């Protein structure tokens, strides 16, 4: 089990290195290698999660180690989906480092298997977890495309049209995929919050208790709502939207890690 996790981490690391090389040199071999190691890493990663699931007897989201690992896993799967659908050149070079860092943080967090209170173990666990993680992962990949947009936009604005300019996708594609991901992530987050509330009502008898996790989720929710709102009403797209998507992901990360580590929360994976 541990070995699968460790190997996945290594694959993500190699994939990251190849991704960075691709950014710098732009050879096809590194790009292919990056994909191969990403797929290999993902397979091993899936295996490690399944094994942890069997060992613990419940969905492995009972502590921050497990949650960060699942987060990384979700980011990779969303990346694969976007890659298959849109073929955004160089996206992997921005997403795989993200997956690697999430995985690395997971690897240094305490790994013991925590028992999960039986009252929490029902289908709401599945619904809430899947919604929240895929939503967060969509925001992560959106952040990646946002960063790519900002780099490419800088090249065009500053008239520095070197090799990377030629290899990065067009501003339009980056902006479209960025927004697409936000419009995927946002309903998922919405449903995650609602399902969390319903679940909480079932377990603790109240829908909403202004727990820090709840508060920060709501702040994140408002932020992404604002991005969508400004785009529709005030034409905030392109650079502004890209910056907002990066900022939004910072909020996601704080809700995910910051609240768990810094604030006292009732939420699992503290």
């Amino acid at each position, binding site marked *: 089990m541990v070995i699968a996790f460790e190997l996945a981490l290594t694959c993500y690391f190699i994939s990251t290195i190849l991704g960075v090389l691709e950014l710098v040199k732009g050879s096809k071999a590194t790009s292919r290698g990056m994909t191969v190691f990403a797929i290999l890493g993902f397979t091993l990663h899936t295996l490690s999660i399944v094994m942890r699931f069997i060992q613990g007897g419940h969905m492995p989201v009972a502590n921050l180690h497990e949650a960060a690992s699942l987060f990384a896993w979700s980011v990779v799967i969303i990346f694969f989906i976007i890659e298959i659908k849109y073929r955004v050149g160089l996206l992997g070079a921005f997403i795989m480092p993200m997956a690697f860092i999430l995985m690395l943080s997971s690897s240094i967090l305490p790994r013991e298997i925590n028992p999960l209170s039986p009252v929490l173990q029902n289908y709401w666990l599945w619904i809430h977890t899947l919604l929240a993680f895929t939503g967060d992962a969509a925001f992560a990949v959106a952040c990646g495309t946002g960063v790519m947009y900002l780099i490419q936009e800088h090249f*065009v604005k500053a008239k520095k049209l070197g090799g990377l300019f030629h290899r990065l996708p067009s*501003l339009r594609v980056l902006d479209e995929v960025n927004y697409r991901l936000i419009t995927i992530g946002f309903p998922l987050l919405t449903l995650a919050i609602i399902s969390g509330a319903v679940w909480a009502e079932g377990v603790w008898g109240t829908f909403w208790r202004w727990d820090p996790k709840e508060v920060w989720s709501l702040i994140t929710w408002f932020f992404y709502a604002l991005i969508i709102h400004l785009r529709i009403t*005030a034409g905030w*797209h392109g650079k502004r939207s890209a910056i907002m998507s990066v900022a939004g992901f910072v909020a996601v990360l704080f809700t995910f890690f910051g609240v768990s580590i810094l604030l006292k929360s009732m939420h699992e994976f503290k």
Partner: protein
Amino acid sequence: MSILVVGLNHKTADVDVREKIAFAADEIPAGLSTLKSITGVNEAVILSTCNRVEIYLSGAGSDKISTGVKDYFSALRNIEREKLEAALYMRGDYDGVRHIFRVASSLDSMVLGEPQILGQLKSAFDLALKNSSSGIILNKLMKKAISVAKRVRTETKVAENAVSIGYAAVELAKKIFGELADKVSMLLGAGEMAELAAKHLTGFGVKEVIVANRTYERGCALAEEFSGRAIEFAEFKHEMTKADIVICSTGAPSYVLNKSDMEKIMKDRKKRSVFIIDISVPRNIDPAVNDIDNVYLYDIDDLQGVVDTNLHERQKEALKAEEIVKEEVEVFFKWMQSLDAVPTIVALRKTAEDIRDEELTKLFNKLDGLGEKEKKSIELMASAIVNKLIHPPTVALKSDDEDRDILIAAVRRLYGINGDMK
């Protein structure tokens, strides 16, 4: 057997010489047969483009051939011998093959890496094939040249990125907008440069062209050319809310569009991106416009800068291409050497003798109790058969006949003698 390139190009001859020498397509068949009638010439290919006229020949005795070709040119084109000699270059064998590979790979082109030359070389080769003026050597050489060119294109970036202002503008537009099919472009002023840039853009399929010119009639004429729509010049700021790509060259002495105009336009078009190309000198659009979000303003110097960078990149890549050419010339000459008669004769003999020895060993193993004398007789008979069988091909290979190259290649293939080029 040698290869000879005789030609002139944009570096050695001015256009007035080039156009005199150049072949029209229908002149080439006659040209090819005249060239083949020159003493020593076995095969000929004529490549004639606006930047170069080159004749590729294979045959024996380069000196004789080159004089013959010069005579041919001065007679055909009625051009002073001196002028002709100054423009012509001759490249034999190794240098000749290298030259052809470089031409095919567009390393010798006026615009480094331009793609047309390969197509032109292919048609030149086709014409030679049709007129059966190309044979075993030039066929191999032309095919190899085409494959070298393809290798250069896939393995280096010598043909990548725009090296003209028009293409640089299109490339940028694509990096900003992705597809251009749903984009509207606007011509501000109807200068020649603007027209040219607009041609490029419409060539890449913009949805609509709007023309705003100070003289409305001239604007209408231009709009018709692009099946676009002409508007009054005074209206252009208003119409700019619809335009995604604006090409400006009005010849006005000062800015026709400043930052606050553009800010208003951007507000009206809900901040959708705009790509503005200001090719007027002096500039017509306030450079500060570029500071507005989602507005990308390029002036003529900016575009020239892009072109220069790209050209510089191509030059760097050309060094890699030269290495590939060098490598491939070696490969080609290995094949040429294999066409030499002597090694082929030796190899043929060896093949025959190997068969003889193998069969003799088998036979002697089967027949026990043969005396030394009998053995000797059998060996002698076997050798006699071998010698008699390979004598006529050996004589033919040693001859100086015109078709010797074909025979050599045929023998190598028939007897499976390796060393052939892939």
